[in-house]
């Protein structure tokens, strides 16, 4: 993975004398105080992060957090006060007017919250707009626009006008308009926020499946954490113009950087985002197939006060022995664990959501093994550890 976009110390200050406000910001004076004293609004303050090629990065924050301003700094619809935007090694902030215009045409597709479709143009002409202004030959314009419309499932609607379409369909047109450009970066400013929840979910799924095929670099702005979790490979969380935390969904949820993040994530249904890896515990004892027999296994279980034990062989977990099975085997006089061990023990992958583990755990009375692709035992999940894990993150969320 290489860095596609890099932001270095981006600031945006609104007002006639931004340098004054900049100085105050650097002295650590807050946004509200600067507003009160100088009348300057701080939109974005010292934001730096990178976006990897082919990933979806979600910039998340409440309204007024500067996320929409930030995404406009990326393509300079809003001119940043300070800082650099580097895309593919090109310093976008240093481009002159004409170069910037061409750069936008080639690299930066954008999708808007309220669709921003041109009401006087047909769906096809809307989608072809970006190509038209690049003076692409008419035939190719039409072909590429049609192809983009097909990708978003709007074939057959090309002759209609935007007002004749529902909100969801309009945003598909908006998406197609950006896709038709064949730009490698898509900026999506609250692209699905104006849609009703069911349509929004459809569009999210659609975007994910498009992304599977197209592998664009997507910067997605959202105020909805569920959406961020669903779409984002990584999430950048903003407040008052600053980045308060960035990382994967998991990192942000389980380890909120501060109260603000914690409050933000408190509303999320934890069982959807907590995975096996988060709530698993180390097994208190393990049996080894090569050396341990039923007697040793029973002893280990007794010592750790557990009623079942996982059996390891050559670094991999190969089975599970319950106390009942082990003592039965002992009575029969067996020396090896191989005969009494269950090979069809319940197991889950490390990224299994907690909600699925509830179902697994409900049906059995012993722990679930967390096993990675290599068959290695990463840990075990028992009912107690699952609930404790959830309670802990929930508490962290409510701590403020």
């Amino acid at each position, binding site marked *: 993975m290489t860095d596609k976009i890099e932001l270095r110390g981006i600031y945006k200050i609104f007002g006639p004398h931004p340098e004054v406000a900049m100085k105050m910001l650097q002295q650590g004076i807050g946004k509200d105080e600067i507003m009160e004293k100088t009348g300057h609004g701080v939109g974005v303050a010292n934001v730096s992060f990178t976006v990897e090629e082919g990933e979806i990065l979600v910039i998340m924050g409440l309204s007024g957090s500067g996320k929409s301003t930030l995404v406009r700094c990326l393509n300079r619809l809003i001119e940043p006060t300070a800082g650099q935007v580097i895309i593919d090694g090109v310093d976008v902030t240093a481009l002159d007017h004409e170069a910037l215009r061409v750069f936008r045409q080639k690299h930066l597709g*954008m999708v808007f919250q309220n669709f921003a479709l041109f009401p006087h143009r047909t769906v096809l002409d809307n989608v072809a707009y970006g190509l038209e*202004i690049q003076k692409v030959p008419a035939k190719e314009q039409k072909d590429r626009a049609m192809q983009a419309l097909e990708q978003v499932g709007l074939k057959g609607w090309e002759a209609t006008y935007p007002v004749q379409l529902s909100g969801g369909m309009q945003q598909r047109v908006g998406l197609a308009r950006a896709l038709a450009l064949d730009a490698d970066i898509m900026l999506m400013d609250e692209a699905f926020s104006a849609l009703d929840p069911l349509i929004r979910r459809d569009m999210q799924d659609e975007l994910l499946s498009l992304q599977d095929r197209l592998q664009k670099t997507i910067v997605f702005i959202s105020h909805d954490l569920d959406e961020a979790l669903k779409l984002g490979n990584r999430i950048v969380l903003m407040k008052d113009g600053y980045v308060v935390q960035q990382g994967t969904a998991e990192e942000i949820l389980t380890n909120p950087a501060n109260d603000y993040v914690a409050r933000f994530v408190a509303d999320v249904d934890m069982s959807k985002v907590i995975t096996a890896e988060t709530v698993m515990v180390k097994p208190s004892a393990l049996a080894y197939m090569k050396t341990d027999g039923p007697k040793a296994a029973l002893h280990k279980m007794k010592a750790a006060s557990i009623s079942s034990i996982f059996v390891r062989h050559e670094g991999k977990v190969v089975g599970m022995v319950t106390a009942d099975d082990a003592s039965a085997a002992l009575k029969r006089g067996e020396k090896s664990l191989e005969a009494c061990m269950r090979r069809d023990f319940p197991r889950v992958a490390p990224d299994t959501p907690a909600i699925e583990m509830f179902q697994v755990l409900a049906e059995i009375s012993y722990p679930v093994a967390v096993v990675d692709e290599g068959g290695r035992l990463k840990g075990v999940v028992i009912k107690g550890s699952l609930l404790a894990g959830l309670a802990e993150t929930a508490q962290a969320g409510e701590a403020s």
Partner: protein
Amino acid sequence: MEAYRIPIGYWIESFINFFSDNFAFITKAFSEITERGLDWSVDAMMFFPVWVLILTFTAIAFLLSRKRGVTVFTFIGLLLIWNMGLWSATVSTLALVLVSTLFAIAIGIPLGILAALSRVAYRVIMPILDFMQTMPAFVYLIPAIPFFGLGPVAAIFSTVIFSMPPAIRLTCLGIKQVPKELVEAADAFGSTKGQKLMKLQLPIATPTIMAGVNQTTMLALSMVVIAAMIGAKGLGGEVWKAIQRLQPDKGFEAGIGIVIVAIILDRILQQFGVRKN
């Protein structure tokens, strides 16, 4: 107080004199050409039998408005004018309005675009428009004479000045009213300023601009009437004559003719603006 009178009137007069002394030969030449053109178009219209023209105007009204009411009104209204013996006056009024409106639009719409796109231009143009619109219309007649001489061209000049502001204002307004998000979209896809203007701003502003054209036409009509005082002929000339001779019958007949022409122009242009939407 009056001992130290500021010579505003003197300054303006000197300014006008300076221009008329040095540039009047240009404006007079322009005046000649325009007057010939105007005469020619009036003659051309008068060449056809009246009923042919009435039918032609009615057909135009129908084609532009596509409304039966407007069409019928145009037909009956023009017949009434013919009946009152005001046909040739009406034709010359129409010609004056047409020419003045074309000039006003040709100057006004580009200025409106400029005002919408440039903050500096906006700050310069808007106060001038306020001045132009509050100044009594008659005043424009006076400087028109040294430049263009008595007659229809001086009338056209003062009419253009008087009727241009709505074309500028509403063009500017229409472009400024284009939703910010659409302009952003056009920018985000890398449009040039010209592309943005031609492909987005002007098409979306068209209904508003057409409302401006409508108002400009109405103002031009009212000014063409006033301009009769400096020698514009037509319906206004009839009214002016009636005032001087104290003939209420002739005055009201010409007045009714103006009302009919106004209603026809208004309805046709209004429909035009709406249909574009």
